[in-house]
């Protein structure tokens, strides 16, 4: 019942506003978190055996008549479904305490669930136009979530985000129209087949340029990154975690990879473009991150940089590179959600995001400080944490593919990453306790619980990396390399 990934959150979101009339807080908390935990449990236990016989396709019938609903799952989509379920489950737990003071929780969870519907749907579809629809489902919900606090900065960020995101959708849709005109169909397999028969370099080039613009904007790759450092920090912390940890990866990286690998086929030129886009994003965003004073803004720039690593790894196109890219996607999703959640805890405790005003918070918030350190080290690639292994895989793949220049860039940029994460750690948590924060308390139970779970995951991904790679990453990489077999 893979369709549950779309259907269940959709139905629960639809009833939540009604439930919210009866019980303002408890029931929405229970229902939404129940959905997240159920989807996660199902992704880990029940869904894997479905794939035993290779990629799975499902069609549905309604009273004996076939319906036009077709979804497909291969290792790659299942991997993404699991990552989405994992991060959203932790974010759901965190929201129980964090969203208390924002009001109208039912509405918040309804929007969050719609974002999950959009992302899950995007991962499961087999048709170009449906990529667009589900991308918009997630996007419309995310505009409202970025602006959820309705303060000036939040509204401004949401508006800028909306403007650029709509341009991205338009570019994607124009590319889809072009491919529809060229090949006369919309499903991945048929369009891919048609493009191979046509073998038309110009038309395929225009379409891939439009896709690159659209998905590049959604994934916030440099030079299409301008909206992200505004939008992600302005949102409430759990939403920043979802946006940075999931949304840019699903509606940017996943959609881009699916289209380029399974519809166009990865040509050497395209692979080169992707690798350089990734490398430029890594370096430029890391340098910009160094200059930030706002904790969440620094994290947002770091997201651009780390997504650069993912795109770089996937762009290599070799099995090792794909595995490295996907593993880094997982590591970054876990660690960056952790860091954004921690920034939320700090902001709630102190009321500021300015790094210069903090200091010595480790004494008052030991759990937050420790988990933050683990997340930072994982993202910057310090052994034996998860991020180290994924960056190592990417760098090895670059050396294997004879791209020494890019390999050097990847290594040097990870030093930069470590540098700016240590700035956060030193300015916010270490050193002498600023007298202003003498009364600061550790984050409430659910917030700490969510961050501890994520920190443990960061450790586990590093310590058990070989089994993680063989059970989760390898099937996903195989799925990417093979195509969906349709």
């Amino acid at each position, binding site marked *: 019942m893979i369709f549950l990934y779309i259907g269940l959150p959709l139905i629960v979101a639809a009833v939540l506003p009604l439930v919210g009339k009866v019980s303002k807080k408890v029931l929405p908390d229970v229902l939404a978190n129940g959905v997240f935990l159920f989807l996660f449990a199902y992704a880990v236990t029940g869904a894997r055996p479905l794939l035993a016989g290779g990629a799975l396709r499902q069609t549905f019938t309604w009273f004996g008549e076939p319906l036009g609903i077709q979804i497909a799952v291969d290792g790659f989509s299942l991997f993404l479904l699991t990552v989405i379920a994992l991060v959203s489950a932790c974010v759901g737990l965190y929201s129980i305490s964090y969203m208390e003071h924002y009001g109208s929780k039912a509405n918040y969870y309804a929007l969050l669930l719609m974002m999950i519907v959009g992302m899950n749907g995007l991962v499961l579809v087999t048709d170009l*136009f449906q990529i667009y*629809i589900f991308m*918009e489902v997630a996007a*419309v919900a995310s*505009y*409202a979530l970025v*602006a959820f606090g*309705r*303060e*000036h*900065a939040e*509204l*401004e*960020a*949401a*508006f*800028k985000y*909306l*403007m650029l995101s*709509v*341009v991205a959708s*338009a570019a994607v*849709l*124009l590319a*889809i*129209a*072009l491919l*529809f*005109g060229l090949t*006369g169909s*919309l499903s991945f397999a048929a369009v891919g087949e048609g493009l191979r028969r046509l073998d038309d370099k110009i038309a395929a080039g225009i379409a891939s340029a439009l896709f690159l613009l659209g998905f590049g904007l959604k994934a916030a790759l440099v030079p299409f990154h301008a909206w992200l*450092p*505004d939008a992600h920090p*302005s949102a409430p912390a759990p939403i920043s975690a979802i946006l940075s940890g999931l949304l840019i990866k699903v509606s940017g990286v996943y959609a881009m990879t699916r289209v380029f690998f399974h519809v166009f086929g990865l040509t050497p030129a395209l692979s080169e473009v992707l690798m350089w886009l990734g490398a430029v994003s890594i370096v430029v965003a890391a340098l910009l991150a160094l*200059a*930030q004073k*706002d904790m969440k*803004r620094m994290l947002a720039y770091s997201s651009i940089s780390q997504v650069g690593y993912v795109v770089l790894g996937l762009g290599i196109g070799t099995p090792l590179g794909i595995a490295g890219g996907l593993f880094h996607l997982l590591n970054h999703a876990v660690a960056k959600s952790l860091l954004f959640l921690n920034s939320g805890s700090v902001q709630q405790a102190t009321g500021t995001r300015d790094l210069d005003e903090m200091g010595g918070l480790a004494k008052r918030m030991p759990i937050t400080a420790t988990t933050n350190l683990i997340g930072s080290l994982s993202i910057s690639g310090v052994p034996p944490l998860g991020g180290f292994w994924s960056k190592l895989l990417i760098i090895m793949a670059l050396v294997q593919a004879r791209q020494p220049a890019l390999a050097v860039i990847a290594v040097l940029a990870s030093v930069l990453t470590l540098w700016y994460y240590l700035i956060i750690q030193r300015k916010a948590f270490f050193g002498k306790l600023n007298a202003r924060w003498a009364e600061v308390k550790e984050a409430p139970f659910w917030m700490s619980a969510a961050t501890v779970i994520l920190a443990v995951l960061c450790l586990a991904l590093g310590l058990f990396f070989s089994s993680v790679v063989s059970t989760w990453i390898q099937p996903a990489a195989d799925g990417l390399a093979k195509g969906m077999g349709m």
Partner: protein
Amino acid sequence: MNSHWLLYLFFAAGLVGIGLYALLTMRNLIKLFIGIEVIGKGVSLALLATGFAKGNILLAQSLVITFIVVEVCLVATALALIVNINRHTKSLDVRKLTQLKG
């Protein structure tokens, strides 16, 4: 049929170009959003014309209807955002939106 298809695409591209120009130069928030609407018109023209040229008009029609539904939701959200921004700034000028920088 190719020449017909490209003729329609020519007009669709014109609409998208006008919309992009508005996004780059306009200062009024509502004007910016009208620019987005113009881009949307170009896209729906491109979609339907493609179906028309391929003889797949029924399919294209259902795509365009879905697109219009998506667009309505987008417009509603964006206009709600604009009304909220206006409550803070008492203006529709995009130059007043300068809190976020760096």
